[in-house]
């Protein structure tokens, strides 16, 4: 199969539309993941009887099952129980929930890295628990894990290709459908891969730089 330059150029607009969906799903899913992950991490750390353990189980379970299985289950099984969403919404939720478990572990490490003296100073000043978390612990914990979260964002961007399996019309799905309707896969798949790379490479470079900039202050 020889590269057909004019065919390749002609399919770029369709692929860009797919890329746009991929980016949207990634950003929305990531927004869910960072918020939900933070809530999970804090509750686990508060050691609330039962609830903290349940959330510990949640993290282990989500991390211990493949994203594709989660996506299929959400798409094919949940509607049988009356939970029916569009493919895109299902995809965003699956990505958000999946990555929330990873984010929760990242936050947990960040919280653990805040020196004990910070908690003690907060106690010595009689700061109430919510101020201690919101003003003292989390700003330091989050700052130190921003680059790691950034790497997860990039990984999520690439993982979102899995959602083509549940009919989300993102970049990979766009490439596949161009391929099957034209009986040419070389150009669409190559270009899809290239587009993934053109976004993810500068993004991960950015987060590496950020990591150096945000070196811990202690």
């Amino acid at each position: 199969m020889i590269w057909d330059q004019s065919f390749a150029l002609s399919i770029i607009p369709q692929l860009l539309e797919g890329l746009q969906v991929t980016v949207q799903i990634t950003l929305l899913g990531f927004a869910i993941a960072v918020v939900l992950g933070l809530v999970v991490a804090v509750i686990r750390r508060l050691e609330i009887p039962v609830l903290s353990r349940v959330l510990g189980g949640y993290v282990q379970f989500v991390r211990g099952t493949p994203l594709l299985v989660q996506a299929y289950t959400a798409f094919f099984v949940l509607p049988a129980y009356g939970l029916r969403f569009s493919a895109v919404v299902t995809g965003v939720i699956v990505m958000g929930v999946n990555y929330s478990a990873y984010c929760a572990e990242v936050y947990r490490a960040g919280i653990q890295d805040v020196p004990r003296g910070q908690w003690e100073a907060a106690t010595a000043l009689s700061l109430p628990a919510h101020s201690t978390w919101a003003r003292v612990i989390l700003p330091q914990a989050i700052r130190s894990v921003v680059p790691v979260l950034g790497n997860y964002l990039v990984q999520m961007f690439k993982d979102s290709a899995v959602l083509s399996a549940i009919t989300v019309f993102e970049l990979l799905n766009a490439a596949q459908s161009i391929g099957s309707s034209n009986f040419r896969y070389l150009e669409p798949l190559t270009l899809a891969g290239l587009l993934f790379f053109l976004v993810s490479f500068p993004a991960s470079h950015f987060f590496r730089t950020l990591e150096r900039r945000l070196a811990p202050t202690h």
Partner: protein
Amino acid sequence: MITFQQVSKRWGDNEVLKSLDFEVLPGEKVSIIGPSGSGKTTILRILMTLESPNEGLVTVNGKTLWDVKAGTRPKEAKEMRAARRDVGMVFQQFNLFPHMSALENVMEAPVKVLKMDKEQARARAVDLLEMVGLAKHLEHRPPKLSGGQQQRVAIARALAMRPKVMLFDEPTSALDPELIGEVLGVIRELGHSTDMTMLMVTHEMRFAEEISDRVATFDHGRVIERGAPHEIFNNPKEERTRKFLKAVLEH
């Protein structure tokens, strides 16, 4: 102002405090000296509620901070929090909030705990930071400050809560020698200018002698000897005090 009655603290088999009875009067400046591992810091940490005693009664300013009958769980109650409000602490490692400026460090608790309005809290924080000689560093964050400056911010931060009791846990131990003087200067000034009760764990013997109304020597979780500084330093009655002083003063 502070009383310890029959207070014990254990870490596994290691008994850090043994049925300790100890008292500090209102306005008194007391230094605790003794070999490391003798339980000195534990006294301060129990007063700051950073550790709980296994047994005994601790009161501050007439309020019960800890009341642990053997075998019962310590209850964290309203009264404990009220008692803790009267206590401020300066740590060996400063423990400033690194993401806040010096000013924000000092303002934080008055705004969040005392519900002071921001302008008032800021004005007071500026006064306090001026008092400890840091008028030029209000906007600087701790990583930009020297150890001596950080510790002075920490003193201002503790004072902002208007404590009746100030605890100093080896406030100069983490400092380079040339920075110790500026911190001791601030503490000395505080001792002369206020009637605050001060309890200090320190290895600076000259300073302890100069600033204290009373000195207590500790060893193995007990008070070995207590008295006026000149008596303890010049004419100690207990053999163990003599030994300890000999060891630290020689070196």
